[in-house]
């Protein structure tokens, strides 16, 4: 199963009870593909079980990156959240595990 990991790298962290996930194309073509296919709605659907609010997507073309902000995804965050990951350290890895064929109009090929 091919996942986002094959075309992207990422980093996530917390701001209060929200988190951000930055996703970077491994090549300029990968970034172009991400920009076209990885929408805020898809990221929101992926993290819905964790209780995220409406996801905001920022394009950062000079860094070949998309930055997603997930409001309230950390269930209180910091000292309040009871979860093993109260600070969003794992969310980058979780997004990179998204299967590519889950994204519509999958035209990407790196094989």
């Amino acid at each position, binding site marked *: 199963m091919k996942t986002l*990991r094959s075309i992207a*790298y*990422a*980093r996530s*962290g*917390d*701001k*209060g*009870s*929200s988190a*951000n996930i*930055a996703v*970077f194309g491994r090549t300029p073509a990968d970034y172009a593909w991400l920009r076209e296919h990885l929408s805020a709605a898809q990221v929101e659907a*992926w*993290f819905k*079980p*964790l209780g995220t609010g409406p996801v905001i997507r*920022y394009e*950062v*073309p*000079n*860094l*070949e*990156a998309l*930055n997603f*902000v997930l*409001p*309230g995804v950390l269930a*209180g*965050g*910091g*000292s*309040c959240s*009871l*979860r*093993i*990951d109260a600070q969003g350290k*794992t*969310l*980058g*890895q*979780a997004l*990179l*595990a998204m299967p590519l064929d889950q994204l519509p109009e999958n035209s990407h090929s790196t094989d």
Partner: protein
Amino acid sequence: MTRPLKIANASGFWGDQPAAARLVAQQPDLDYLTLDYLAEVSLSIMAITRAKDPAASYARDFVEVVQSLVKFWQGGGRTKIVTNAGGLDPHACGAAVRAELAKAGLTQLKVAVVSGDDVLALVRAGGPDFNNLESGAAVTTVADRLVTANAYLGAEGIAAALQAGAHIVITGRVADPSLTVGPCCVHFGWTTTDYDRLAGATVAGHLLECGAQACGGFTTDWLDLPGSHDIGFPVAEVSADGSCVLTKPAGTGGAVTVQTVKEQLLYEIGDPGNYLSPDVTVSFLTLRVEQSGPDRVRISGATGRPPPAAYKVSATYRHGYKAHGMLTVFGEQAVAKARRAGGGVLRRLQEAGCVYRETLVECLGTGASVGGIVRRVPENDLIETVLRISVAADTQEPVKRFTREIAPLVTCGPQGVTGYASGRPKVMPVFGYWPCLVARSAVKPAWKML
């Protein structure tokens, strides 16, 4: 042309490697060492320790760092230090540091403290200005439970103290990048309206503030790194135009690449076109990032605009108690057994009259870190899991009762329960996080040479 300023970091958070400072300080021609101790929740941890011991209101780890640098300074080392180790009481931290220096005969080193960030009295008095930035809730809902409220000050006080000849500057809450911006302002003679240059230094400070994370720590491709057992701490060589080269000490592990730098640039960032600091509003959308040599990455092109009209405040309030208990469950249907055992503990407690505002049972190994949204193996196929049970309550008693109910699972739980040797879990106070704003005119940043 003024030579570049060499600034390193040797602590990304409270609890980072205590030996790092002594090693990083050995870098040739290092001008400044910055040490960051204050994450969002750190001041509330200090509030806990302060409740038990009024002297424990700052990062005492920093006093050990000073001890570790005594030989370096005695040998003629000139590197200056800027740190937010002062926590809730920069003056107490400064006094402890001076005492250490005096013991070592280093009284020629001047210590300054920056204060004025404490706005607890103001926030406690309330007002619509202090509404929660995330939820919009009114501060009156938590005013009587507030424990700390600190404004993120900028580089101003740090720069003034350095200008006056301080060798060690100890602050309370300041914006993390300001630890780097302050030295740059003094060295290059920037004014408060040199926005593009301040933006560049803020970017350098943002890259430095999490320590090893800029040099391969936490990177997606961590397994491919050379020397991952000994990842170096970052060093920024900041130029007069605010651009910088990020690198790391020779001989350390990890890597400084376009990838490690880009990942850290967007770490804990909201809108990359509007990165807000008390010194400048930065756009990351004009940045250029290029490899300029082995383990050397050049970052240039930052653009800045005037900073926000208000300071951001990080406040914390008492929010009851919590505890987490963990046990390992091994064997056939380990996850099913763990879930039933965890649910059973909570049921026993509830039947005994304990009331919790929140409970959670997690089976680690099943993708529990992300609520099970990523799962590679069916739960039933796992031969082992770590059962983690958590509770939170407004009062201490039901949480304390919970901590006594974990170990009994060894004899009344499923076969194959182990990993109970670390004893009963600890009852921990919970501190809620309350981000808000405060007008600049209401805050009086101050510095003092001790």
